[in-house]
């Protein structure tokens, strides 16, 4: 399509306006996080250092990272064998699994919390009061996104032929899934893992309403006493998530290059 100069000028101006709307808050957050308020204004990196020195903040960061790790592990352990099994042995159940996996997307997270809070009172009773019990809720939360990523990767390989070949050479189902299928869908699993980590690190609804100290909850609490430090932690987590998600777009581009369908 050809465009007139007028349109190009308008496009450039509009893009600048959008960029301002989207980037000024981020820059403001950065500026805010390195400012010293009060009697002696100036710049400092102290608030960023607080992430390591402050006991509460550090433990919440550790809790969030561990949660992310466990969620990813449990998600892969649950989802991959189930999806492979369904694809190979009971294709009729595919619709049902798909429906179940996409369900959390349509129900507001807040509603899930309301429904789950009774369940959680005995989960914490059985497993102790660590924030890590949130893993179970988070696995549900990341299901829709992980399902799509893994499903796309599984569709791209000929799982039936691969597993039949392995089975006829004497491999058990465990070997088939772990040593044959999983190496072939690495990109899908990685994509699912990235988006899960991003979601878990930003998740606030479950943690705050069920009273667990994850990073977002700690940030919200910290904000009331030390705004700039909370901003620094927020920006750091935001950058980490952005890097993960941008990495994800590169991953999917590589997959397209191999000629696989998405």
């Amino acid at each position, binding site marked *: 399509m050809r465009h007139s100069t007028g349109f190009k000028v308008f496009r450039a101006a509009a893009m600048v306006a959008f960029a301002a709307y989207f980037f000024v808050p981020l820059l403001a957050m950065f500026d*805010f996080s390195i400012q010293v308020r009060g009697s002696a204004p100036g710049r400092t990196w102290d608030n960023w250092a607080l992430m390591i020195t402050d006991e509460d903040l550090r433990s919440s960061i550790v809790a969030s990272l561990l949660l992310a790790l466990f969620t990813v592990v449990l998600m892969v352990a649950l989802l991959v064998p189930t999806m492979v099994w369904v694809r190979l042995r009971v294709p009729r159940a595919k619709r049902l699994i798909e429906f*179940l996996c996409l369900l959390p997307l349509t129900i*507001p*997270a807040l509603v899930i*919390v309301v429904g*789950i809070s009774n369940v959680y009172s005995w989960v914490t009773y059985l497993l102790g009061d660590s924030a890590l019990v949130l893993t179970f809720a988070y696995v549900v939360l990341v299901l829709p996104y992980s399902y799509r990523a893994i499903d796309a990767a599984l569709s791209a390989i000929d799982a039936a032929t691969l597993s039949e070949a392995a089975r006829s050479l004497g491999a058990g189902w465990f070997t088939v899934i772990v040593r044959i299928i999983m190496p072939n869908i690495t990109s899908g699993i990685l994509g699912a893992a990235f988006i899960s980590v991003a979601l878990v690190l*930003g998740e*606030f609804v479950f943690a705050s309403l069920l009273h667990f100290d994850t990073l977002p909850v700690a940030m919200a609490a910290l904000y009331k006493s030390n705004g700039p430090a909370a901003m620094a932690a*927020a920006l750091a987590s935001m950058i980490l998530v952005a890097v993960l998600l941008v990495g994800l777009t590169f991953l999917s581009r590589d997959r397209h290059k191999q000629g696989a369908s998405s």
Partner: protein
Amino acid sequence: MVPTLTVVVGAFQDEDGRPTLGNLEALTSEAALTALRGSLILSASTALIGAVLGALLAYLIVSMPPQALMRRATLAVSGVLAQFGGVVLAFAWIATIGPVGVVTNAVLELTGANLYGTGWLFGLPGLIVVYSYFQIPLMVIVFAPAFEGLRPQWREAAINLGASTWDYWRHVAIPLLRPAFLGAVLLLFANAFAAYATAAVLVSQGQPIVPLMIRQAITSEVLLGQANVGFALALEMIVVVTLVMVGYNVLLKRTSRWMR
């Protein structure tokens, strides 16, 4: 699969397991109606703002050559920003136009006007500005494929038949895009309706929207027995979101005839 079932069964059981109508009656109280109205205003206005501005941005992106760096960068950034919500987003806006925000201070120094005013950022108007921040990129992601689905041949055909650019948009492009656009509006509506974290950090007093009212109902230590009202409010949310999703699926079916 077990967690999904537990949650689904649990979420529905808790609502229906208590067969009293008292909880539903609580929905018609003054406060609950105000919250519902606030939620609907917030979701509808940010869905419209997000949809219009997002569609504009999507068109600007799609009108660039496919290999342009700017185009790919904007799409990637949109992907990140659409996921960007919650606590961090609330902080970003407080740092920008909050009481001692960077932009507030700058405007104050330059013009003497107080952008922060009487605290509008922490009420419904502020929520609209902040929610638009993730609605617009989401619209770009959802709607850019619709623009890409418009074949250049259709435009050439229209122009060969003597249509002006305006005629093309009015009689060909806009009717084709309308179902996709309405579907995207519904999606944005559901997205805003379900969002909680950003509002929870921004708004600490009063319950202008339903999610915050649920928070009050299930965390209240003053009024016992409020939990059931929380269930009723949650049921209200499910009903609204279900209606929206059904509408979305209907529109999606109509669109998919053209977009392939």
